[in-house]
């Protein structure tokens, strides 16, 4: 087991195409870290640099206490699970798992012991003699993980391992990966574009965009306290509602912003770094918006569309003078909500976030 430390890691293709723009990150021993971001953000490149499959243009990569920049991929103590599984099609499951051990010259008994143990953990003992093409997607996934386990690596690397599975299997494998991490307690680095995987699996999430780390933190930390508009918009489904607004007054532990048409909203943030009149963005998650059918409280609005998902209802609501359609997530069943109905929206002060003109969040005060 080992920690992984990245110091000002950069990656440049050719002369001037920079895909990783100076990444600093410390991954602790035994931690499950997820890199998440949109496609092309550099997360896979970063993982492949840790694996030793891509050259590091500049910066230091430490695995444990040694600088690993110049160590061959197979000598770094890592094992990798690929998106396409990358099983060797001409070898049986057993040989797939034993391949690396054979190459490093382990004894036959040793290889057999380790393969059987990994097969046991993953419950694929009955598949050992089969060829990959005789396996289902989920079974292939297990073999790919098994191939990583037998190497008893210090760091596991996963490159979007679940994206080729259907939804139900993906859920299963997610749970099993969590269990696996609990059992093995090995450092794991996991790349995905799926925020649900990131939220459910990670000890810490690293959000990347355009080759730059946006924020690092535990899933709930990132969800509750996104440091900028990108993280706020990326995590959470449906997306956080983001509305253009203007800062109108500053208080000790709250700020008041004005939406178009003069509607004002109080937010529990410390906006002292800004000044009155600044253009800001107001953010509130769909589940925090309160929707009221009667009363005088809140902002007048009209329902544009209703989606009944069974356990929840999503209401898309139009507020006069606001360009964006707001999404409101309501638990339970609400047959009384109809398209075109007039409603009122309340933005609770404690759940409302404000971002400055550069997209950075003001600190929340609660």
């Amino acid at each position: 087991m080992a920690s992984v430390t990245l110091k000002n890691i950069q990656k440049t293709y050719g002369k001037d195409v920079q895909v990783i723009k100076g990444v600093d990150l410390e991954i602790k021993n035994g931690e499950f870290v997820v890199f998440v971001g949109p496609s092309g953000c550099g997360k896979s490149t970063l993982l492949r640099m840790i694996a030793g499959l891509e050259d590091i243009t500049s910066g230091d990569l430490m695995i444990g206490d040694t600088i690993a920049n110049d160590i061959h991929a197979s000598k770094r103590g890592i094992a990798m699970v690929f998106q396409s599984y990358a099983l060797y099609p001409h070898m049986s499951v057993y040989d797939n798992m034993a391949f690396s051990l054979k190459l490093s010259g382990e004894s036959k008994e040793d290889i057999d012991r380790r393969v059987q143990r990994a097969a046991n953990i993953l419950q694929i003992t009955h598949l050992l003699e089969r060829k990959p093409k005789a396996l289902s997607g989920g079974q292939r996934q297990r073999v790919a993980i098994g191939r990583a386990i037998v190497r008893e690596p210090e760091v596991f690397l996963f490159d979007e391992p679940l994206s080729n599975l259907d939804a139900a299997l993906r859920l299963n494998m997610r749970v099993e990966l969590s269990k696996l991490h609990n059992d093995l307690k090995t450092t794991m680095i996991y790349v995905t574009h799926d925020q649900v995987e990131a939220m459910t699996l990670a000890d810490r999430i690293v959000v990347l965009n355009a080759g730059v780390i946006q924020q690092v933190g535990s899933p709930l930390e990132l969800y509750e306290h996104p440091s900028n508009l990108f993280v706020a918009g990326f995590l959470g489904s449906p997306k956080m509602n983001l509305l253009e607004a203007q800062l109108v007054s500053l208080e000790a532990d709250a700020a008041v912003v004005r939406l178009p048409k003069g509607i004002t909203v109080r937010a529990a943030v410390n906006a002292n770094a800004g000044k009155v009149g600044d253009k800001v963005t107001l953010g509130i998650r769909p589940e925090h918006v309160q929707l009221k059918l009667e009363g005088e409280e809140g902002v007048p609005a009209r329902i544009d569309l209703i989606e009944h998902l069974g356990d929840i209802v999503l209401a898309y609501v139009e507020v006069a003078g606001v360009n964006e359609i707001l999404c409101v997530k309501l638990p339970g069943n609400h047959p009384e909500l109809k398209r075109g109905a007039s409603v009122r929206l309340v933005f609770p002060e404690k759940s409302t976030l404000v971002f400055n003109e550069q997209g950075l969040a003001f600190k929340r005060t609660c």
Partner: protein
Amino acid sequence: MALGKTARTVIGRTLHYAGLVLFAIFTAFPFIWALSVGLSQDASNIWIFPRAFWPTDPSFGWFIRVFHEMPFMTYLGNSALMSFWTVVGVTVVSVLAGYPLARLKFAGRNFIFVAIIATMMLPSEVALVPNFITMKHLGLLNTMTGAILPNIAGAFGIFLMRQAFEAVPQDLIDAARVDGATELQIMWRIMVPVCAPSIAALAIFTLVNEWNDYLWPSIVLNSKEKLPLAVGVFNDLTGPFATSTSLVMAAIVMTIIPVLIFFAFTQRYFVSGLDGAVK
């Protein structure tokens, strides 16, 4: 309406199959006639059509006589030996050359690839004279080595293998690299087995081409006992030996049969092999 549609389908199918059968007759009739003539002990009907397409007094007499009239087994042995070594040579050379062209970065890669591909456009027949002189200087005239050497390194095989290696997913190579395989191990233990279908296709194409190669062996080889089937049988059939059409046709059928048997077993590779070459 439903009836009309069924009737149209039936007519369409019938026309479709009629067209196919007519065309099949066009491609197959020379073989059928040759087979019928070879099987006819009584040769009096072989120029009387359409009677000639059905053997008269069938027996294997002419086929047996082929063995007496010409050194058929010697030719067959030569063809087998030449084809075998050509297949081995072409496969090894093409795999070795295709791998770096597909997967390794090195100075001059594009230039070499374009140069190799460009030879497909040139009339290779122009090389007959220079190669004849080269073989003379190397002392390889009238040897099997001389007869197969120019067929070993060809643009087609190298191109086919390069395409196959290029199609192997990068993930597979990365996985092997993480598993600790060296570049050589990646090639022999991953790439070559994964590309086995393409290699098989190349081997089959090469085998058929070499088995049928006529011109170059006919130029290089001049002792009768060294000739392959395509040359030996042709020479005997068109030379002074050609006394009887029945004998000629029997010999022809016997020459084609090994290829047909081979083709029957490997048919699927002919389509899939060319598939890779087109894309």
